[in-house]
């Protein structure tokens, strides 16, 4: 199994840390992982993306240009990465601020209104964990306990009291993700 993922959105949305938690979850299950961020003069409000690869085999290139899954969290990223999903692949997006919805007919499309849900939950910082939950609902990549372990590994100890909130957010994401269109 190899899963090649791009997570793209605004800086500050937790794009990079979501990728890191995915990687650590993979490590917990003995997988090979790679995490390649776009780095540069980026900052809160600018665009940020990360390429994550999870595999049972040695990972060749950490840099790729087509993906099994694209998790898209703003319009710029939709414009850039909708076309980069492999046919039959998966696109998950947050509807918040999206003016042009995905149009492809040859991929599976899911929508998760995580920004709205995070506000409702009273903690905007759980946004990325809601998205992660949605993704894990659609693609059952790991056991939930590996994800929680991964979360523990990637969070500094001083934030470990936040783990229950994050776990709740993952569950909420699993509940609210909606199918838009699928191909068999």
């Amino acid at each position, binding site marked *: 199994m190899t899963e090649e993922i791009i997570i793209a959105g605004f800086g500050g949305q937790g794009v990079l840390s979501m990728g*890191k938690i995915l*990687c*650590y979850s993979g*490590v917990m299950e003995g997988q*090979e*992982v*790679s*995490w*390649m*961020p776009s*780095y*540069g*003069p980026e900052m809160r409000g600018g665009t940020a993306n990360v390429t994550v690869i999870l595999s049972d085999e040695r*990972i*060749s*290139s*950490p*840099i*790729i*240009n087509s993906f099994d899954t694209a998790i898209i969290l703003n319009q710029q990223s939709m414009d850039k990465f909708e076309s980069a999903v492999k046919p039959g692949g998966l696109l998950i997006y947050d509807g918040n601020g999206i003016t042009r919805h995905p149009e492809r007919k040859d991929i599976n499309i899911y929508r998760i209104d995580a920004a709205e849900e995070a506000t409702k939950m009273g903690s905007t910082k759980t946004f990325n964990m809601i998205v992660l939950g949605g993704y894990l609902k659609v693609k059952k990549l790991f056991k939930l306990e590996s994800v929680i372990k991964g979360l523990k*590994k*990637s969070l500094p100890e001083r934030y470990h009291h936040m783990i229950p909130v994050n776990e709740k957010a993952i569950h909420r994401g699993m509940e609210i993700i909606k199918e838009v269109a699928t191909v068999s």
Partner: protein
Amino acid sequence: MEEFVLMKGNEAIAEAAIRAGTDGYFGYPITPQSEVIEYLAAAKPQERTGMVLLQAESEVASINMLYGGAGAGKKVMTSSSSPGISLMQEGISYIAGSELPCLIVNVVRGGPGLGTIQPSQSDYFQSTKGGGHGDYNLIVLAPASVQEMADFVSLGYDLAFKYRNPVMILSDGAIGQMMEKVKFKPQQPRNKKSPDWATTGKTPDRERNIITSLDLDPARQERFNNKLQAKYKEICKKEVRYEKIQCDDAEYLFVAYGTSSRICQKSMQMAREEGIKIGLFRPITLWPFPYNEIREMAGQVKGMLSVEMSAGQMVEDVRLAVEGKVKVNHYGRMGGIIPTPDEIVEALKQKIIGG
């Protein structure tokens, strides 16, 4: 048993430096390698091993701190990125001319000048052909994974002390910034004993140890040059390192190091799915360069594509190696752009198979 951790290449270098028993790290922050000194500062190596961690006032100062520390027989290192490494060239030449061991990490970014902060491989000439003045060589190691970023720290020190020669780890912004699994060697103690050539104060039982790169007597200087060259010859004979992937049945060959070699592995999978029998030759030591091993491949394959994030630097060594026996071409991107796997397959078709 040590477990796998997830780390950036830059962080892996820093942790490996502490574990290798480094006596002193001297550096000045620059993107894309600032995580090295950032990690070290957080890890408090002064408490773990007594290692000195010092942010110098400039790259020129850091390399000269290395010169001093190495002269005292200590395990010393620095890290920087391209513009910073350019500033260090005078010191590197002096260290080579004084036959001192040290470790220099270059996490390359695009140039020339301040260039860009994105990854590049355009410092190949500078690293392998002597970026400073005089007839000297660095031993140059090219990691292609976060694990190798860690492993090459202790390997680098071993080679540096074995040959009393500066060693460079030539990485790039992509490997510096990406995270992969890495497993570290256990903590090595710092050396208690100094090498017998170190300037640690004269004792009555021996002559003075003198460390200098200056000899105004041309005859003596030439004798020294000959001694250096003999050392380099021995290194070329004994320390060539490389990796061959799917070369057994290869009709074509990618030659690539570092990040490019990783991308080429994906290109290789794609090309093989189309029935193109392609292998990958990955030099691990860029100096000494695996000339003989690439020459051997020239008898087997119909063409070689050197893939680098540069205008074409290593390709000159590949051409030297094959002595015109087989077609060699270059494909690369510059300015901090990383070539994509399919772009490389296309270049292979156009420049080697069809060209």
